[in-house]
C-alpha cells in the first residue's frame, strides 16, 4: 500500500512541504490530489471541490509540475504553452500574453520557437513550471521541482515559488531536500511508509525533537569518540572533521560533565557550541520512529 489513511489540511496561501524518503508515498499522494489516480477509499477536496466527484473543476484551479512528466519535446516551448493554455481554457489573447510574460521571467523567451528536444534539464524544468502557471492557478502542485538541477536553476525556481506564493498562490511541494523545505515551507508533513509521521512548521519540528539537542566540541588533542560517549547524558556521538558532535537531552548538564572530562584527561577545550537539531536530524529521527 503506497498511502495508508493519511489526513491533512493545507491552509490557503501557505507553502506546504511534503517530505519523505523514496517510496514513502509522496508522489502517490500528489497524483491522488491532482486526479491522476483514484484512491481505493477516502476523499480529498481542493478549494472545496471533491477531487473524485468534481475532478475537472478542481483540476481547473491547479497548476501541476508532475515528477515523472515531460513537456512535448517535438513541440516548441511556445506551442507547449499554447497547448496547456488551451487545455485549461485560457482565452487566446490572455494565454499569448501570459506565455510571453512567463517565458521572459524564466529566461526562455529567446528560445520560445525552439523544439524542447534541444533543451537542457534545467530549461525543461523551467518550461514545466511555465506550463503549470499559464492558467494562473490558485494552487500549485510541485513534485520534486528542483530535483537534478544546478544550483543557479534551483535558486531561480525557489525564488519564483516564493514570488508566486507572495502573490497568493498556495503551494504544495514534495521534496527530498531538507534545506529546500526549510527555506521555502510554512509547514511540513513528514511521510514514511504511506503514513504521516509529523506535521508542523520547520522550527517547531526542530524544537520538539527531544534527544536531538547538539553540542559540538573540539579539544587540543585527539580524543576517542568512545571515551566521550561514556560521558553521562550523551546519547550519541559523531565525529565531524576535527570536532565531535554529541547528541544530548540537556546540554547545560552535559557541558559541566564535558569540562570535568577535559580536566580529568588534561585536555584543553578549543571550541564548544550548542546547536539546534537540523531538519535532517529531525527527519531521520521521525522516519526511524515511524
Amino acid at each position: 500500500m503506497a498511502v495508508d489513511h493519511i489526513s491533512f489540511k493545507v491552509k490557503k496561501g501557505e507553502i506546504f512541504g511534503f517530505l519523505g524518503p523514496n517510496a514513502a508515498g509522496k508522489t502517490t499522494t500528489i497524483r491522488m490530489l491532482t486526479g491522476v489516480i483514484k484512491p481505493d477509499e477516502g476523499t480529498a477536496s481542493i478549494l472545496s471541490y471533491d477531487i473524485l466527484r468534481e475532478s475537472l473543476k478542481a483540476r481547473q484551479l491547479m497548476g501541476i509540475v508532475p515528477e515523472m512528466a515531460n513537456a512535448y519535446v517535438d513541440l516548441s516551448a511556445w506551442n507547449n504553452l499554447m497547448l496547456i493554455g488551451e487545455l485549461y481554457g485560457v482565452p487566446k489573447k490572455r494565454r499569448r500574453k501570459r506565455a510571453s510574460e512567463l517565458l521572459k521571467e524564466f529566461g526562455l523567451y529567446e528560445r520560445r520557437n525552439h523544439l524542447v528536444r534541444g533543451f537542457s534539464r534545467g530549461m525543461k524544468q523551467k518550461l514545466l513550471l511555465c506550463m503549470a502557471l499559464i492558467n494562473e492557478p490558485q494552487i500549485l502542485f510541485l513534485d520534486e521541482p528542483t530535483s537534478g538541477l544546478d544550483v543557479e536553476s534551483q535558486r531561480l525556481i525557489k525564488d519564483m515559488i516564493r514570488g508566486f506564493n507572495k502573490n497568493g498562490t498556495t503551494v504544495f511541494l514534495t521534496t527530498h531536500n531538507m534545506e529546500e523545505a526549510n527555506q521555502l515551507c510554512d509547514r511540513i508533513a513528514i511521510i514514511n511508509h504511506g503514513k504521516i509521521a509529523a506535521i508542523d512548521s520547520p522550527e517547531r519540528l526542530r524544537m520538539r525533537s527531544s534527544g536531538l539537542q547538539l553540542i559540538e566540541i573540539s579539544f587540543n588533542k585527539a580524543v576517542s569518540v568512545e571515551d566521550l560517549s561514556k560521558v553521562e547524558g550523551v546519547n550519541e556521538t559523531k565525529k565531524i572533521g576535527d570536532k565531535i558532535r554529541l547528541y544530548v537531552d540537556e546540554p547545560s548538564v552535559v557541558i559541566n560533565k564535558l569540562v570535568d572530562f577535559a580536566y580529568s584527561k588534561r585536555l584543553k577545550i578549543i571550541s564548544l557550541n550548542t546547536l539546534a537539531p537540523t531538519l535532517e536530524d529531525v527527519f531521520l529521527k521521525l522516519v526511524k520512529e515511524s
Partner: protein
Amino acid sequence: MESNIYWEQFKRSFAIAKKNVRIYYSKGPVIIFGLLVPFFLFLSFYIGRNISAEALIPGLLGMTAFFTATSVGPAIIPWEARAKTLERLISSPVSIWTIFLGDVFSSFLFGVLVSVFPVLVGLFIGVEIANPLLLGLGIILATFCFASFSILLSAYPPTDTPASVMMLSSMIKFPLVFISGIFIPIEELPVWGKTISLISPLTFFTDLARYSIQGNSYYPIELDLIVLIAFAIIFLVTAIKIHERTMQKRL
C-alpha cells in the same frame, strides 16, 4: 451549465487534435507511408489484370482511408506514456473522453485529407463520380469509424511500447483488407467469405464507394451508412471504456 462543460471539453479535444497533427501527422514519413502502403499494395494486386478504372478507384479509396486513418492512432497513447507526457495530459482539466476524442479527430482529419488523393487520381484518369455527395459523406463516416477503430487498437494491452501496438494493429488491419471486398468483390466471395466480411467496417465503405462511383452496390446504401455509424459508435465507446480502465497502468 452542464452543456457549457461539454462544449468546453469538446473545444479542448481540438487542442489535443492540433497537438497530434503537429507532433505525429505532419511528419513527411508518416504522410508518405500513409499514401504509399495502400497504393503499392493495391498496385501489386491489380497490375496485369483487366480491370476498369471505375472498379479500381473504390478499392484504392477504401484502402487509403483505412490505412491512413488507422496509421498513427494506435501508437499515440503508448508514445505519450513512454515520453512521459501522458501524466501531464491526464492531470489537465480534460476528461478521458476529451483526450481520445482529440486523438480520433486528428486521425479523422488525416484520413479525410489523404483520401482526397485517390479521388483526384480517379478524376485525373477520367473516372466519373456518379454521386459525389454520397462519396463525401461516405469518406467522412468511414474515416471517423476507422479513426475510432485506431484508438481501440491501442486499448489493450496497456503498453508503452509503440512498436508492439503497431505490430498488433498490423496483424488485425491487413487481414481485414482481404475480407472487405477490395481485391475480390463481395458478390464473388463464397458464403463463408461474405459472412466474415460483415465484421469489417471497410466492407461497407468499399460498397458505398462502389455505389458512389460505379452506381451499383452489394448492400443497400442505407445499410452501408447505418452500419458505418454503428461501427463508429461501438469502436469509440468500447475503446474509451477500456482506456478508462487501463489508464492507471500506463502511468
